[in-house]
């Protein structure tokens, strides 16, 4: 695992832990946004293996889709979760969609945790 990959994984860990707390203390919208940020950080950690370092959420999603979902290097459902969490994060701003329910935020956090474990395994084998 490269130092940057390890750093990204650590960042994602912290963000997921925050999201867990936020579910209880700050509400679904904040937790959903943290979960979304964690998913993007984990995708960045995967892309780091290929020497890619996109920074904008769309660029991260597209690059991850091309490198990991299309090629099945990681289970393709993670790509769906990445897009879902990004959309949930956007919806959580409340600018377009109405308020986000706590079930949806909790689901997003759980998915981030599962993805985090998969990425750690991947980085250990490939990073």
């Amino acid at each position, binding site marked *: 695992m490269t130092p940057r990959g390890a750093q990204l994984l650590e960042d994602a860990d912290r963000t997921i832990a925050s999201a867990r707390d936020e579910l209880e203390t700050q509400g679904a919208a904040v937790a959903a946004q943290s979960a979304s940020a964690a998913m993007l950080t984990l995708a960045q950690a995967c892309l780091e293996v290929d020497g890619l370092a996109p920074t904008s959420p*769309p660029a991260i999603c597209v690059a991850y889709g091309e490198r990991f979902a299309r090629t099945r290097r990681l289970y393709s459902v993670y790509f*769906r979760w990445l897009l879902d969490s990004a959309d949930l994060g956007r919806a959580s701003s409340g600018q377009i969609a109405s308020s986000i329910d706590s079930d949806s935020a909790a*689901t997003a956090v759980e998915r981030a945790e599962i993805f985090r474990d998969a990425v750690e395994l991947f980085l250990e084998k490939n990073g």
Partner: protein
Amino acid sequence: MFENNATTDLVMGRSSVRRRILTVLAQPETRLHLREIQRRAGTSPGTASRELGRLVAAGLIEREAEGNQVYFRGASTPLATMLRSLLAGPGTLRSNPAARPVPTAAGASPRPSQPHRSPPIASTSASGAAQSDERAKPAHPGATSATPPAAGTARAEPPSQAIAEAPDVAATVPTSPPDELGLTIAARLAARIRPSYGSRLLGIFLYGARARGEARPDSNVDVLLVLDHVDRYCDELGLTSAACADLSQEESLVVSRVFVSETAWRNRADGQLPAIRKEAVAI
């Protein structure tokens, strides 16, 4: 009078789209771009482009380039004027075309106050099924065709007029036509998810940079879905997840969706919804 006349054959032939295009451009002062003609004629961009090409070649329609935008208007020749008047019927040339019922995918009429853009009317009706397949065809080279809903699958009920007439919908005319790629991808997404939603799906709209015609090549394709209600947001994401992921991968773009309830779409006055209503393009 018009027997054995190739131009007349072209107009009076079997293409109803061709006749509708001529009707849309019946007024000599009417000048529209391809997207608007396609919308008013209730056909796909590809079909509209093809028929316009034939009509231009026949001298019935004139093509005008202005910067990056191409406009079409009825030719001013006596023959073209006469043919258009014959097709449009008595009195049509003196009437306001924007005030006439013009076919749309939903069979509704554009508002008289919006001559350059039809109001977003969701084409989820069963009566629009035939056209929705046509509309879902690729509008740009390299795109793949949409997968039409399987026969017998549930379709949404005809969109309520209330959806089309939400406050501010298309109240401001965007300066650029919607992005073709965005429309195509949104149509493909719509074709994929309609069977899953059935009558719950009340409208599908393209919004954001691609609706405004301001997209960069890597801009998201932002799609807004109006549902009868939204309870668990993750359930709605789950219903559309595979379609969004597949399209995002195929097009190397992010296809993003947001769900709003019918009540919010019609009534909400804060946040970004009012602005989105103005730019939204119905799929």
